[in-house]
C-alpha cells in the first residue's frame, strides 16, 4: 500500500484510540456514580439511575449520537462533532459499565464492609478504599470487554462528522477505488488496538495478584 495512505489510516487510528480512551475513562467515572445511585435505598437516586441505564443500553448508539449532535444545538449549546461523539460514547459505555459494576458491588462480601466499619472508616472512605477496588477487580474481565466494544462502536461517530479510522477508510476507498486493501488495513489496525487493550487488561489482572489463592 501507498505509505501516504497508510500514514493517513494510522493518524485516524489515533483519533479512534483517543476518543475511545477518553470515553472509557470518563464512562468509568460516570458508571461508578450511576452504579452507586442504582444501589441506593433512596428511590430519588435509584430510579433516575435505572432510567439512565435502560435508555443508554436500549437505544442504538447511532440514534444517541444523532440525538446529542442535533438536540444540543437546538437548546443553544453548540458542540463540535468530536465533543458530541465523546459525550455519546461516554454515556453509552457508562450505562453498560454501571450495570457491570452494580454486580461487582453486590459481590463485595458483607463481612469486608463490616470490618471496615469496625475500624472506623467513613462511608466515603469505605467506598473508595474497599468497595471500588474489590468491585473493579471482580469485574475487570467484563470491563475490558466493554472497552473493546466501545473501541469498535467508535466507528459510528462518523455520522457526526468525526473522521476516525472507519470514516478515513471509507473516504480513501472511495477516492482510490481500491476498497479491499484499505478496509483490510483498517481491520488490522483495529485488531492491533484490541490486543493493546487486552494486554493492558491482563497486566492489570496480574498486578492485582490478590485474587488468586
Amino acid at each position, binding site marked *: 500500500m501507498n505509505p501516504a495512505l497508510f500514514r493517513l489510516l494510522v493518524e485516524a487510528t489515533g483519533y479512534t484510540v483517543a476518543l475511545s480512551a477518553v470515553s472509557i475513562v470518563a464512562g468509568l467515572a460516570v458508571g461508578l456514580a450511576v452504579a452507586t445511585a442504582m444501589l441506593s435505598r433512596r428511590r430519588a437516586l435509584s430510579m433516575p439511575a435505572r432510567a439512565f441505564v435502560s435508555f443508554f443500553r436500549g437505544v442504538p448508539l447511532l440514534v444517541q449520537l444523532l440525538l446529542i449532535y442535533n438536540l444540543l444545538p437546538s437548546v443553544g449549546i453548540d458542540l463540535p462533532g468530536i465533543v458530541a461523539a465523546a459525550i455519546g460514547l461516554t454515556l453509552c459505555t457508562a450505562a453498560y459499565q454501571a450495570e457491570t459494576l452494580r454486580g461487582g458491588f453486590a459481590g463485595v462480601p458483607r463481612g469486608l464492609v463490616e*470490618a471496615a*466499619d469496625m475500624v*472506623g472508616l*467513613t462511608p466515603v*472512605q469505605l467506598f473508595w478504599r474497599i468497595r471500588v477496588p*474489590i468491585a473493579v*477487580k471482580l469485574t475487570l474481565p467484563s470491563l475490558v470487554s466493554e472497552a473493546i466494544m466501545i473501541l469498535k462502536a467508535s466507528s459510528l461517530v462518523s455520522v457526526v462528522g468525526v473522521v476516525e479510522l472507519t470514516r478515513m477508510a471509507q473516504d480513501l476507498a472511495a477516492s482510490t477505488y481500491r476498497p479491499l486493501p484499505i478496509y483490510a488495513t483498517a481491520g488490522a489496525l483495529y485488531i492491533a488496538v484490541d490486543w493493546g487493550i487486552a494486554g493492558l487488561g491482563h497486566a492489570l489482572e496480574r498486578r*492485582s495478584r*490478590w*485474587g488468586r489463592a
Partner: protein
Amino acid sequence: MTTAAATVGAALSVRGLVKRFGDHEVLSGIDLDVPAGAVTCLVGPSGSGKSTLLRCMAFLEEASAGTVLVGGEPLGFVDTPEGRRRLPAARIRAVRSGIGMVFQQFNLWPHMTALGNVAAALRVVRRLERAEAEARAMAQLRTVGLEGRAGHYPSQLSGGQQQRVAIARALALEPRLMLFDEPTSSLDPELTGEVLNVMRRLAADGMTMVVVSHEIGFAASVGQQVAFLDGGRILLRGTPQEVFRKPRHPRLDQFLDTYLDRGAAMLV
C-alpha cells in the same frame, strides 16, 4: 448483678437487650456486664443468640430494644423521654473506636497485604504518615508472630495466619475492648491452637475480651466470666467454676455432651 443501672467500671454493659428478626425473637431481654481487664465467654448451642448478642455489642446489628453502653457511653441508640433516638454516625464511630472486632471469616481485605490490612485504619482513620503507620502495623504483626508475612496477601496465608493478622488489625487501633465472634470456627483443628495462643497472651496482658466460642476448654481455662445462652436468654452466668460445677443445669449438660471432644473432657 442484673440491676437496671449499668455497673460502674464495666467496660461494656448490656441492658434489656431485645433483638427480633421479623417475628422471630433471637434475644429476649439480655442484661450483662463485661468487667474491664477480664475475659467474658459467651457459650451456648447454635441459635442461642450468642453471636447476635456480640454483634449487637458492636452495633453491627441494631437491637430492637435495650441499650449497649461502652465505657458508659451509649452505642447506637439512646433512650430519651420522647423515646429511642438513633445517634449520629460520627458519634457511633467515636464510641465504636474503643472496640476491636475479630470475625469468624477473618474478613481481611483481599486487595491489601497483611501489613496493608493492619496499617489501613492507622493511615485513613488516624491519619498517620505512611512510615509511622507501617512501623506500628509491623509491631502488631510481630506480637502475633507474623512479621515475616507482612508482604503476603490474605489469599497467600493459611486460615490461622489470616485470623492472627485480623487480630493485629484490630489491636493496631489500641481498643479498650476486643470482641471475638467464633474466631476459630472456620479453622482446621490444627490451626485453632495458634489463634487461641494469641488470645491467651492477650488475656494475660489484661485485655478486656468478649469471646463467642465453641472452645469450651478455652472458656473454662481463660474466661473469668462465662455466660451460657439458650433460646435468647442468659440461662447461667458466673465464673467457669460456678457455671460448669456439678450438678449442672440439664440444658448445659445436654449442650456439653455434644462438645466433649473439644477439650471439655477435662471438666467432666
